[in-house]
Structures are given as C-alpha cells and as structure tokens.
C-alpha cells in the first residue's frame, strides 16, 4: 500500500528542477520507486512526474558521444536503430533487462539513480566508459559511472539534482555481456569489451558486489580469473553464498574473455 503524496507534472525541464528535492522525488516508470514506496523505505510527500518533458527522452549523437535522455525506456534503447548501430552491446543488454513490462516502463535514468547493485545497465555502462550528466537549477556536472555509484542504492546525486542524460563515447567499445540469473536480476554479470581508446581490454563485473568493478589491461593475457574472483566481495542472498558467487564470477570471467577473444560480439 502506498502512502499519501501529491504529484507535480512539469512540462519543461526548468520546472522539474525547481520541484525536485529531498521530499519531492522524480519518477518516470516508477518500476523501482513504487516498490520502495510500498515497502515504506521511501515516503516522499510529493512526486514529480517527468513523462511530460520530451527532451528527457531524446537519443542523439553529439560530437563523439551517443547521448541518451534519462527518460528513455530500456525497450526504446534496445529498439533504437541509432543505438544498435553505435553501441550494439548496450542495445543487446537493454533488451534483456528485467522482464518485458519493466523494459517497457523503466528508464535508463531511473535505473542508474536507484543504484540497485544488480543493475545490468550500471555494469555495461561502466565497461563502455559512459558519463552521467546531472543538472540542477544552479548548474550541471558530469560524472563517470564509478564517481556516480557510491554504494547499494546510493549515488553522488544531490537531492536537488536530476540525472538528465547518459553519454556513451563513440565509437563504443564492443564485446560480450554474460549473466547468471534465476530471478528478475542477475546474481553475477560480467562484460568483456575491446575499446579503441585507453587500455584496450576492459572487464566489468557487476551484480555480485555492492558496486560494479572495472579491470583494464593492454592484453587479455593479463587477466587472471581466479584472482579477480578472489578480489571481489560478493553479497550473499537467496541466489547464492559468497563462495558460490565467487565461483560463478570466476567461471563467467573466463567465459567472457574467451568469447571476446574468439571475436564474439553482442548486438
């Protein structure tokens, strides 16, 4: 049962920025927020419905970046020809998030801001070296995924800030995303990608610990799956113990690296 609250429906970004704050939370699909409100983990006095702000759902190229508006749903990202062409891995991962209803209603911005530790998007966006763009009435800033995600359900976003867009450098890294999942969210997710800029081999491990972790190297030979798995701190839950999840991680790291070395590419 939800508590009582008022709802604001801004039609322009500036209005939304004036409205959001500690007690006044932004929402789009509500796929994460309403669950937290039902459990009374969050009890905002006001909700700010962002669905009336078209600019938050734009997908566009800007210089050497693919810019995805925070209000774009997983399904819209997965089926967008521009995303598929420029960042096929992201397209593929979004097509496998949650279930069909979550993909139809849930957005990239909501997913990242909720900072669910088992987020598929956080893991793949970390591997793709994406940045998030935060805006408030007093200014804007850009953060890397590592800077943004501080812990489970905890981000660097200030209450009066809105995540307005996610920026993926283009040409985007390509590779594979493997996950082991029996429920709505993965127990372990591993993505291995090859990038044109910086260290060419990038491995991100998500869902298993408090926040996703990134490992980079010049060559895939430098990765040792056993020591990577030993270095993570899995969160035990109904889908597995610490020991079991470390084992899964090691197996998925080996598989992901083997796949990317063999030339496999998702999307």
């Amino acid at each position: 049962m939800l508590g009582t609250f008022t709802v604001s429906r801004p039609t322009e970004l500036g209005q939304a920025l004036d409205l959001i704050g500690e007690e006044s939370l932004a929402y789009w699909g509500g796929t994460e927020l309403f669950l937290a409100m039902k459990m009374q983990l969050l009890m905002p006095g006001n909700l700010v419905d962002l669905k009336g702000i078209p600019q938050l759902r734009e997908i566009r190229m800007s210089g050497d970046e693919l810019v995805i508006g925070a209000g774009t749903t997983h399904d819209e990202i997965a089926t967008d020809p521009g995303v598929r062409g420029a960042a096929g891995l992201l397209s593929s991962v979004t097509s496998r998030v949650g279930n069909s209803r979550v993909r139809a209603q849930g957005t990239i911005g909501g997913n990242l801001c909720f900072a669910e530790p088992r987020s598929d998007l956080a893991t793949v966006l970390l591997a793709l070296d994406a940045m998030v763009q935060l805006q408030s009435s007093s200014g804007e800033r850009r953060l890397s995924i590592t800077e943004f995600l501080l812990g489970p359900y905890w981000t660097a976003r200030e209450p009066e800030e809105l995540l307005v867009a996610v920026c993926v450098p283009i040409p985007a890294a390509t590779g594979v995303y493997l996950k082991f999942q029996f429920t709505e969210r993965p127990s372990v997710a591993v993505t291995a990608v090859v990038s044109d800029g910086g260290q060419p081999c990038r491995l991100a491990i998500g869902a298993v610990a408090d926040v996703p972790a990134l490992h980079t190297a010049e060559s895939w030979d430098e990765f040792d799956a056993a020591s990577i798995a030993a270095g993570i701190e899995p969160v035990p839950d109904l889908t597995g113990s610490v020991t079991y999840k470390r084992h899964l991680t090691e197996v998925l790291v080996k598989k992901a690296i083997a796949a990317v070395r063999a030339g496999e590419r998702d999307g």
Partner: protein
Amino acid sequence: MADGGELGRTVRANVNGTEVSRYVANRSTLAQFLRDDLGLTGTKVSCELQVCGVCSVLVDGSPVSACTYLAVDIDGRKVETVEGLADGDTLHPLQQAFVEEFALQCGFCTPGFLMMSVALLRRNPDPSEEDVKEYLDGNICRCTGYRPIVEAVQLAATRMREDGHV
C-alpha cells in the same frame, strides 16, 4: 504544470473502448482502480512486485504491471484489459487458442498471459518459440503449464496472420 497540493485528480481515459472519467487518489494503483472502481476484476493481483505478471494490462499499447503503476498516470491514455479482448461472444484468437491448446489449469495467470501475448503479437506477428518464451519470461504460471501456453500463442499468431487480425 497542474494540480500541486492535491492528493488525487480526475482522470479521463479510454478503458477498453469506453471513455471513463473518475476522481482517483494519487496513491491508487491502476490494479486497484480497475478492480475496485471500475469492477474490471479480470485483472488479478498477486506478487505486487512486478514479478509474476498476473496484473499485466496495456497502457497506450505498452505492457505495464498494474500493481505498480499509478492510476492517475492513465489520464489521457488508452487502457486495455482482458475484458476488452473478446468481441461480444466471439473470443479473441488468443483466447480461442488458449482454450483449444488447454493453455490454462487454474486460470489465475491467464489474463496476464493473454495481455502480454497481445503486446507480443503486435510487435512481432510471427514469433519463434524462443521469442515467445523470452517475451513471456516475466509471467509466472504456478500450475506450470508453460508448453501449451507457448503453443497457443504460436497457434493464435498463425491464425491472426492468415486473417489479418490486429
């Protein structure tokens, strides 16, 4: 921008082809609104966590878990529930195929499976077995009769393609 400070609002929506105008509390879910206010009890509620799929309905053609969707958010939109599928006494091809393939046992999950299948066939009129399984992955049948459900969806898809049914 409108109606700050109010705990509800009047929504105007098209539900299964009928224009509806009701005052709804902000805290009402779409499932509560459909079942309690409109008496459309075909939409069931179970997990209330968007996991089981029994409350699946379509809003502007897009599948939603009615248990976790605000009723006030249907304002100006089109809602489709299982009650809107049949044309009088003529079952929708999906319903007919579910009957013929014995794609239900207790039937509690069936409205959700039907609405998700409607959404699937609109975007993919010729789904493979894998496509059906993937799209319906978020719907749970505790009688575990999944195989006939997949077969029913594919049978309906074939008939709908032949008939030009939309």
